[in-house]
């Protein structure tokens, strides 16, 4: 490869990995709740809360030295995400409110509150921006270090390693700790877990809070890693990426390696169809972006349909050997 090609290839890979960081973390947010038998559609809200808190922590405390400053911003944002997710967990644990409803409501609540904060005349709007609804920029010390590529051209930041670490933490917590054991037990069968002496309500709360923690972390890393400031469009559209975490978790089957691979796939799809990478005269980026969504939908659809494989398998047997392979019907427990 020549220099220029090499350069643009590196740039594209950096962009893909930056997107993958977000997808890994929002995927983990969905996956962790899934393991507890909960469906966290609230990644979007938890992500927004995380990015607003992360941003503001990055703007304040500019006198701190870089490492504590970044840590402070990240921890505060993760906690904010955990609280936002924890509300849904708490409601599920105490009054039994369905987490699908509560997380959706929390998503929109977070979206509008953030729009107010960031928007024109809002408390976080940069006074120097005039009529433009945009916040102040994160202070230089709080920006994540870029270790590959140039910081000006949005190179790959160390958030990538944080995401990788999060994958390991996810596995460790689920596979090697009491909390993880209990969460999985509740996810397998809440009644059996209760009978076994596990506090189901407590685990619902914990699982949602930890889920929210991952999503909040994603918000903080994005804002400290490459967005640096928030505007209305970022709040209202970029958070859709958080929604893609659902597809990532489903395709990755809630396993760390699966989530990693799935997020690379979706990140590449997103990056490859972005306005920056497509020549509008060849393929309109708006069309391509929607094609990505269709592909996403198809992937999720077919991932869910494992029985389709068995059907196809049987069909092949039938055609080749003339007799269907006996597949014992899966027994679905009633009650």
């Amino acid at each position: 490869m020549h220099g220029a090609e090499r350069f643009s290839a590196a740039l594209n890979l950096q962009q893909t990995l930056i997107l993958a960081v977000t997808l890994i973390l929002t995927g983990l947010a969905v996956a962790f709740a899934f393991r507890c038998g909960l469906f966290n559609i609230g990644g979007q809200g938890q992500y927004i809360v995380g990015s607003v808190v992360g941003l503001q922590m990055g703007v304040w405390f500019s006198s701190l030295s870089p490492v504590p400053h970044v840590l402070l911003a990240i921890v505060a944002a993760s906690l904010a995400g955990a609280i936002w997710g924890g509300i849904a967990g708490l409601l599920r644990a105490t009054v039994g409110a369905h987490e699908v409803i509560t997380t959706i409501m929390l998503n929109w609540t977070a979206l509008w509150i953030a729009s107010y904060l960031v928007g024109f005349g809002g408390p976080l709007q940069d006074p120097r921006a005039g009529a433009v609804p945009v916040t102040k920029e994160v202070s230089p010390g709080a920006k994540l270090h870029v270790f590959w590529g140039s910081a000006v051209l949005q190179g790959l930041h160390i958030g990538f390693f944080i995401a990788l670490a999060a994958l390991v933490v996810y596995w460790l917590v689920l596979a090697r700790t009491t909390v993880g054991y209990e969460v999985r037990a509740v996810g397998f069968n809440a009644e059996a877990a209760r009978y076994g002496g596990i506090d189901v309500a407590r685990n619902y709360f914990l699982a949602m809070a930890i889920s929210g923690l991952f999503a909040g972390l994603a918000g903080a890393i994005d804002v400290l890693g490459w967005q640096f400031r928030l505007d209305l469009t970022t709040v209202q559209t970029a958070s859709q990426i958080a929604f893609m975490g659902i597809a990532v978790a489903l395709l990755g089957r809630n396993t760390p390696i699966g989530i990693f691979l799935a997020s690379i796939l979706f990140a590449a799809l997103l990056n490859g169809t972005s306005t920056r990478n497509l020549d509008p005269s060849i393929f309109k980026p708006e069309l391509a972006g929607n094609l990505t969504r269709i592909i996403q939908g198809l992937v999720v659809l077919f991932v869910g349909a494992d029985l389709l494989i068995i059907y196809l398998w049987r069909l092949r047997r039938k055609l080749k050997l003339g007799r269907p392979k006996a597949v014992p019907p899966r027994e679905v427990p009633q009650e």
Partner: protein
Amino acid sequence: MIAPAETLVQLRRSRWAGPRGVAVFGIALGIVAFWLALPPVTERRVVVPVVIGAAAILLGLWAAYRGELRPGWGAVAAGILGIVGGIFATRAAVPHLDAVITWSALTAATLRFATPLTFAAIGGMFSERSGVVNIGLEGMMLMGAFFGAWGADRTSSWVGGLVIGAAAGAALAFVHAFFSIQLRADQIVSGTAVNFLALGITGYLFQDIYGNNGTPDNLPGVPDVHFGFLSHVPPQGLGTFLDDAFGGLNLMVWLSLALLVVSYVVMFKTPIGLRIRSVGEHPRAADTVGISVYGVRYAAVTTSGALAALGGVFLSLGFVHSFSENMTAGRGFIALAALIFGRWRPFGAFGAALLFGFASAFAPRLENVEGWANYGTLFQALPYVLTLIAVAGVIGRSIPPAAVGRPYVKQ
């Protein structure tokens, strides 16, 4: 366990008597406390809402003490909200109040906001009552919104839009049905996938067909229905109110109300409804008596798609008269919430849709209060916060159909 007939009668009687009834009365008092401070009554003394709100709190506390925890605390919350709202309203200037609270316009707007939710929630009811979780309502609405607009554009008539929109929603629902019934995929996974598909398909076609110009301006819309006689209803004030509130509503608003009654009758008073519900509660038993579980579920899910799509058609052809990408903006999910909130019953879901519609209609008006214009965006969160409080406080646990979410394996 079968309860003897007397017990059932007692249960029914005791449901509203005693602490529970008192708590509901308390909730009503809390609302009245706020209402009195608003036009047309416009009570200006702070004492009135405070005293009535305090009464609501006391009743709630008593009910909570007597064991009716949730309605009791609901009454306490209503009382506090009544006092706070009442104090705010008595402090505000009368012209401001009149600008915010116009009951007739609020009623009309509430119904308008509730209509798409009603369609989708009732659609969802058919699906979920038959035992198939339908998280894809959002996508089905979106299909209806786009294909309704496209169909109306192509056939140059709104009827064509209605039919094509509903068919598109039904087609998407059929995909969901095939994967979740035949292939026994996880219904939530399949529903999520269907949402992505709808977002992509409508977005792609919209960009491809209409591009940056958007849907044509002369899109044939669903007509409004005018009832001239309403303004002649005897007392002058009532007549004007009725005319303003109900005189110029869109045809589809009335359709949604009709659908409400029809779906209630079908679901709870006919053999078809009994079949749907039995398949959703105990598919094996239904199978044993000769009901085709797959057949019923296919029909129910496809119907739900068509109904949800009608909600989408209302958005594009009855409400804003154009289509834009992802224009449903989460309404399908809210309809799902309304369905769960309304305990999988048509009137319950409609009530939840009305609550949500009222909050949506009310919130933008708060901007008219002097000095509050800046908080405009913040008020948009109000419907969601209210729903959250309502779900958490008053309603709580809803019990879904027993077999919902479980694939059925034929034997």
